[in-house]
């Protein structure tokens, strides 16, 4: 009977909710650590670090497994949550005419389903903004760097000085770590020359031999910066939406973190107070740090 019990019984639903919830908490930490690079490092260094991190997250096998697990966890968490909510709604077909639940329970704990739904809406938006572009349509430009160099075009016969002409050299950051010259452009004439070609949106191919010579980093950093930049007319709306969503996430975690331990049976008089404190700290710190990133970007760009 154990198999069916593990899937059908109400208590098993709690385990799944708790396990997926806690797993998603670890995902949040990972995601946050990556995001923090958006504000703790600046300039090309920061951009490079972030894009390298994003590339790593997309290509490391372990991380890949982890990310698929995250997708599954998210789906299970949501579907299980919906099933729980349906079961719970059915359990009280007639509502109280007068109810005072504030007296015995926290607001967050009573609204997990609504908070969860809001988070789901946020996730859909968030993924459409970044993940969809990065993974599916790959509409993200590659990490490029345009340097203007003085190109020698001759020598002044009188003075012997070099005559130079500014030209723009576009580099793409190769995943091998080097900035690879992609094209040169003469701004005065508008003439340009590619040094290799790009296929499949990010792969570098030699122009003549058609051999793959490298791979580019997607410039997610710039996408993010642009998204939240003051120059972007919808950025303010975006920032507010993100901040509110993180508030919602905070509320969800405020109850969810410690609750998961309770569901798994890990409630001990000695440890539960600690778990509760950690949960509270987690539910404040993590969403707060997530939330200040768009704010800082907005202020600085």
């Amino acid at each position, binding site marked *: 009977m154990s198999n069916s019990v593990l899937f059908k019984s*109400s208590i098993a639903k709690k385990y799944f909710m708790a396990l997926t919830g806690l797993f998603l908490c670890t995902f949040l930490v990972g995601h946050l650590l990556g995001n923090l690079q958006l504000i703790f490092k600046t300039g090309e260094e920061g951009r490079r670090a972030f894009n390298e991190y994003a590339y790593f997250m997309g290509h490391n096998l372990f991380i890949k497994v982890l990310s698929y697990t995250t997708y599954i966890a998210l789906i299970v968490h949501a579907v299980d949550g919906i099933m729980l909510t349906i079961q*719970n709604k059915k359990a009280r077909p007639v509502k109280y005419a007068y109810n005072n639940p504030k007296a*015995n329970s926290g607001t967050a704990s009573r609204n997990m389903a609504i908070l969860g739904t809001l988070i789901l809406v946020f996730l859909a938006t968030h993924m459409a903004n970044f993940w969809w572009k990065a993974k599916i349509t790959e509409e993200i430009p590659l990490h490029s760097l345009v340097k203007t160099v003085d190109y020698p075009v001759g020598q002044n016969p009188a003075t012997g000085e070099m005559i130079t002409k500014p030209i723009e050299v576009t580099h793409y950051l190769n995943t091998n770590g080097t900035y690879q010259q992609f094209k040169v452009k003469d701004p005065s004439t508008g003439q340009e020359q590619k040094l290799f070609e790009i296929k499949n949106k990010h792969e570098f191919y030699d122009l003549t031999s058609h051999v793959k010579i490298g791979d580019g980093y997607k410039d997610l950093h710039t996408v993010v910066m642009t998204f939240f930049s003051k120059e972007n007319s919808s950025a303010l709306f975006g920032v507010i939406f993100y901040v509110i969503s993180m508030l919602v996430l905070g509320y969800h975690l405020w109850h969810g973190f410690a609750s998961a331990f309770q569901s798994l049976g890990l409630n001990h008089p000695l440890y539960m107070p600690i778990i509760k404190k950690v949960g509270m700290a987690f539910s404040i710190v993590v969403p707060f740090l997530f939330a200040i990133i768009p704010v800082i970007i907005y202020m600085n760009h």
Partner: protein
Amino acid sequence: MASKFINITLKIWRQKNSKAKGALETYTLNDVSTDSSFLEMLDQLNEQLINEKQSPIAFDHDCREGICGMCSLYINGRAHGPDTGITTCQLHMRMFKDGDTIYVEPWRSRAFPIIKDLMVDRSAFDRIQQAGGFVSVNTSGRTMDANAIPIPKADADKAFEAAACIGCGACVASCKNGSAMLFVGAKVSQYALLPQGKVEATDRVLNMVRQMDEEGFGNCTNTGACEIECPKGISIENIARMNREFLKGALTKA
């Protein structure tokens, strides 16, 4: 005990039987002693209704000292009313003020169908108990000496705290999900904590939880409302213990 007298308005759920449609009816009641218990106030109202040849309000009650678990009532939006650590029969009118309007509703749960007015059928709890809430020992009295197995005081005390459940159903009534897990968790815990109950612990928790699900109770989302409203202050630690026991059972029982 300086007793005062107050006048109150009551909004009480009236429903002729399980199939009839119910509604909140309004009553006014004067000269209620603040030393009266809530149920004595209802007695007073019923006496008034009977004298007016109206149908008195049906409500469950028996011991009137907070131990039998028969009284229920959702009063002003809370199971057993605004005070904590008590049953409705221990709620006293000194908790209310002159001129108050008091809402009185039955427990609301799919698993507790209304019988009449404020009375509900809680036999679902009995059926859960019948599914495994016992130690399978015959009543011969010839087991072993009561002191043959010492039980650590801490365990015995915890088992007692869980066993203090009076089966009133306030946990179900106040849970936003109508979950019975505090009730079941308490029973599972009592036995799981005692050596006598450990032998069948696995079967017990699986069977009781199965029956609980069949009865149509909701699922616990750890809001903790039940432990606040439980007249005996039973901790949700007991639900955690049930979750542990259940996991053990679900993973090991072939």
